């Protein structure tokens, strides 16, 4: 599949990247791992005159767990950097779940977390769990830097609040409260290399058997990854009994607005949301105990 011609630039600083993007905002695009962009270019779905690669900007590569338990994911950190990070495995198991469910090994070696979010497809695997953790995006533009909650980041399928010369430089995940457990679950059409038909993530704060706080988020069942706030509310203040979980599942399904497509029907996606919500809440709570 031959791609149309484009220019490829590799700035070494964020400001240089922004400047390059600003030169031709409509014709340029940020290039991170390229696993989404190249597919679009090959399929002729997009045409960019210029790709601005972030690969040579050293400071964007880091993944940091700070002493207070916050997590910062640099813009060019790959999915596998996350999946192989021992600290993340222990403290943010749900983020590890999501990373391990994405595509397959080679893609995980190349694809970035930021790229997954910026691509903003409804099924993006990293989105629900980061949304549930209340992650924020640090965005730099030629006029300065701002922080955007992930909750406000997605606008529609393949659409975000980013302006043409914006660069996401990092994703920040706040430190989880004591007693937090998290999990991410999704159902694809085969074990690896398949996009999810539905995905659910949960972050819960447990105090003994009582859930003090719960956030449930959904992927692949709405135009963007979404919060299922009501589902979290059902659980909050309660033990995770079968009834409570079932109720949470129903609420989550009410939040979902799935479509029929070649991967699954609307009805099936709703059923999946119910089941996955129950299971993911239970898994998150179990981890909080353990």
């Amino acid at each position, binding site marked *: 599949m*031959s791609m149309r011609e*484009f220019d490829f630039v590799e700035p070494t600083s964020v400001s240089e990247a922004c400047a390059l993007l600003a030169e031709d905002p409509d014709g340029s695009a940020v290039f991170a791992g390229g696993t989404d962009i190249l597919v679009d270019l090959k*399929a002729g779905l997009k045409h960019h005159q210029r790709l601005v690669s972030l690969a040579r900007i050293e400071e964007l590569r880091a993944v940091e767990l700070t002493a207070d338990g916050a997590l910062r994911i640099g813009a060019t950190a790959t999915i*596998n950097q996350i999946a192989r990070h021992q600290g993340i495995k222990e403290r943010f198991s749900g983020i590890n779940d999501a990373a391990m469910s994405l595509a*397959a090994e080679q893609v995980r070696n190349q694809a970035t977390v930021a790229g997954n979010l910026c691509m903003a497809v409804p099924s993006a695997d990293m989105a629900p769990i980061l949304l549930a953790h209340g992650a924020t995006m640090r965005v730099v533009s030629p006029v300065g830097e701002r922080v955007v909650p992930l909750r406000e980041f997605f606008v529609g399928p393949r659409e975000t609040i980013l302006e043409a010369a914006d660069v996401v430089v990092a994703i920040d995940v706040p430190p989880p409260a004591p007693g937090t457990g998290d999990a991410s679950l999704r159902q694809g059409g085969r*074990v690896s290399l398949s996009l999810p038909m539905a995905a659910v993530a949960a972050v819960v704060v447990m105090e003994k058997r009582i859930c003090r706080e719960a956030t449930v988020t959904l992927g692949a069942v709405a135009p963007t990854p979404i919060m299922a706030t009501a589902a979290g509310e059902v659980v909050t203040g309660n033990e995770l009994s079968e009834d409570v979980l079932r109720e949470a599942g129903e609420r989550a399904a009410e939040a979902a607005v799935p479509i029929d497509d070649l991967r*699954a029907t609307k*009805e099936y996606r709703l059923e*999946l949301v119910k*089941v996955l919500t129950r299971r993911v809440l239970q898994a998150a709570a179990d981890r909080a105990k353990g």
Partner: protein
Amino acid sequence: MERVVHLTVNGDAHSVAVRPNVTLLDVLREHLGLIGTKRGCDFGDCGTCTVLLDGEAVKSCLVLAVAADGREVTTIEGLASDGAMHPLQKAFIAKGAIQCGYCTPGMVMAAKALVDANPDPTDDDIKTALGGNLCRCTGYTRIIDAVGSWRKYEGDAAPEPDSGHDLETHAVVGRSVPRSDAPAKVTGRAVFTEDIRLPNMLYGKLLTSPHAHAVVTNIDTSKAEALPGVKAVITGADVSGVRYGVSPARYDEYVLAKDKVRFVGDEVAAVAAVDEATADEAVKLIEVEYELLPVLLDPFEALADGAPDIHEAARGKNNVNTLVDHHFGDVDEGFAEADAVFERRFVGNFVQQSPLEPHCAVAQWNHDRGTLTLWSSTQVPHYLQKQLSRVFEMPLAKFRIIKPYVGGGFGGKAEAMALDFCSAYLSRATGRPVKMTYTRPQMFEHHRGRHKQFMDLKIGVTKDGKITAVDFRNVLDGGAYTSFGVITAYYAGFMIPTLYHIPNYRYHGRRMYTNKPPCGAMRGHGVPQPRFAFESLLDMLAEEIGMDPIDIRMVNAMDPNTRTVNDLDVLSCEFKATLDTVRERSGWDAKHGKLPFGRGVGIGSGGFVSGAGYPIYRSSFPHSNAIIRVLEDGEGATLMIAAAEIGQGSETVLAQVATEALGLAYGDVTMADCDSEIAPIDLGSYSSRVTLMAGNAVKAAADDINSKLYRVAARELGCEPEALISEGRRIFIEAAPHVGMDFAEAARRCFSADGPLVGTGCYEPPSSLGGDFKGATVGTSPAFSFGSSVCELEVDPETGVVRIIKFTDAHDSGTVINPIAFHGQVEGSIVMGVGEVLSEDMIFDDKGRILNPNLHDYLIPSIGDTPEIESIAVPSYEPRGPYGAKEVGEGSMVPVLGSIANAIYDAVGVRMYELPITPQKILKALEEKESSD
């Protein structure tokens, strides 16, 4: 703008000038000639392009060359050091983890990244690390085994396969010798058609129709022709008026559309240009005007009175492309004798072979001699040569067909295709070699995969389980052209009475033209879907009369030396042994109906022909023909045969037969290239014919050599030639083994006295096959295989997701010539079957466009979907086969579908009538069951 990129590839520094839109894969293959890294999809889905970038596995089709600047790349060519293979490579050879070899380099590189980081990986580690590498041949089990045991192959030891399953009756036959092509495939040296680069070569591309049904009113190629770098553009006006196809009665395809287009993907024009990008660009510049016609996507709509004709009416009334109407015995009487009769509709799916290697052809027209040399990824070099000769209206001798390594076919490469013809025309027009390759989406549009069948099946049984009658009405959605479809329509019905004794049988089959991609022959050709229906309905009847599913199969099972109700000739048959075996090995009696809700076991049976009894077009030539040439020093021999190795291992098996028959040691016989200038006609790789038919021809050629040698040796040893045998590189008196001479010595004398020592042999199926009614020849075969599979699985009743746990499979394949190759076929069939039942289906929109023409959304199983598989060959001997051998490659696919469907029923009590059995269908069925309970 070009830019110089510095790469260290396999330790060597390279500077390459590239444009930014060039991928690392392009650089490796096109600039550096490192063809070991394969392009199976170009979209990140298949993993055949996997290389290491600074030590990490990446898909090189998704890496821009400019982004790799300054980095270190390791490809498969860099893995062996100083010619010594990496232990992983040896493990792949020894464990039989290689079949067609197209996935192998990528698979090995992904495994290399794994073992570098984790030298003792668990099975789960392996499944995670290789999750991005698809394999369509092996079923993955041997790949997992190879990677898991790689450390056993450290050091100098040569890769010796496990001999656990070997027969002890012969020296070479029955032994798990390593595949002769494995070293070339595992090191990336094996050259597939796409890997060929000839001097001054052009690249061709096809323009296909975006409409499912339309008249082509005008084509303007002027803009395309004006594009710099474009060397030729051809349309329907430039190609032969002779139509091609598979069955002579239904040659219905023009090389390029002359009048109408009949499916999205129908070929309209082709261009040749100096590079692929220019050719792609030129294709877009061709302007075609279409007058749209009504689109018929539903075979029942196509069948309705008043439906427009997709082809001129003469080729089929009401769009019926093939009609089969058979009645043996009297079904009405049969049903009257039955105690239980069930009738149900079952519906199949559109399954595509999806070999990892895309179809490719390289044509070189020689104007000095007026000949064409064509390298093609084909399963049937002879039929290709024949069709070229028809279309170009020139003698066979003008066409030289060379089949390089083929990266899987499964029936999808069993006929001449547009790429073959178009590359030939373009080469003739330009006087330069032309290469053409299908993109992955074009492979789906070309299709020639399974027909979707709508099967109304009725079976009657007595209270003892004896089948009294079967009535089968079938509508096959055939797509826009005939392809193999006549045969498919017959096979779908004809194979039903081969497995069980069926005293009364009626089959009514209609293959419909629709405006979809043409369906053709795929592994098990026409049989798997009807067998899914039959095995499901038989289980339902067993339950109705209170009988165990394996018992009801035993009661009806075919016996050896039977002439079936539809006049098929069954000689060897160990079907009952396969049932006994899987019953015992799967723990059936303790499991069936006894496992907790959500877990179940199911049985399915099936089998296949060992080669078609008659060729596709009427001809008097033997079906297989072999030549063996012993070298003048007598130390080795070359086998020349055009039976097509496409990954199944037939070259190795045929070399084993030749070696055994000549009494030599494995390695003494080498295979000549599959080249029509070297080897005589052989009908190729379809209908599971190679082992039996080509094997017989090879054995006959070896016997011919032996008879010449025995004459010479008998004079020398003072005995009768009949007293001699050849074994262990010696010819000796059977009754007095110490009296003999070296094979080489006898061969030298023979050569010195008479000149070239050549043996020839051929095989022609018995003329007695088949009855004398219309179509009686179609399902005939010298021998039939039989097999049974027990599937154990889990169904998640909340999501409908099926997890296959284990397959226990027993197959009667006659004498097994190479056990590792045999089990590899079974494992590959099972995993392909799992995909076919659970996830694979081409989905069309209402305009006839395929919505999932890629390996991203058309879901063939990944390594993590592979269950545990126990494969058993039951002892058997087929008198018509070489050393008693018959088929396994296709027959092993057939039982899989029913066994899964029946296991799902055992697990959760829902009967699934429609393929694929997706989680959402199971969930729906569970809900319906709950509301009706």
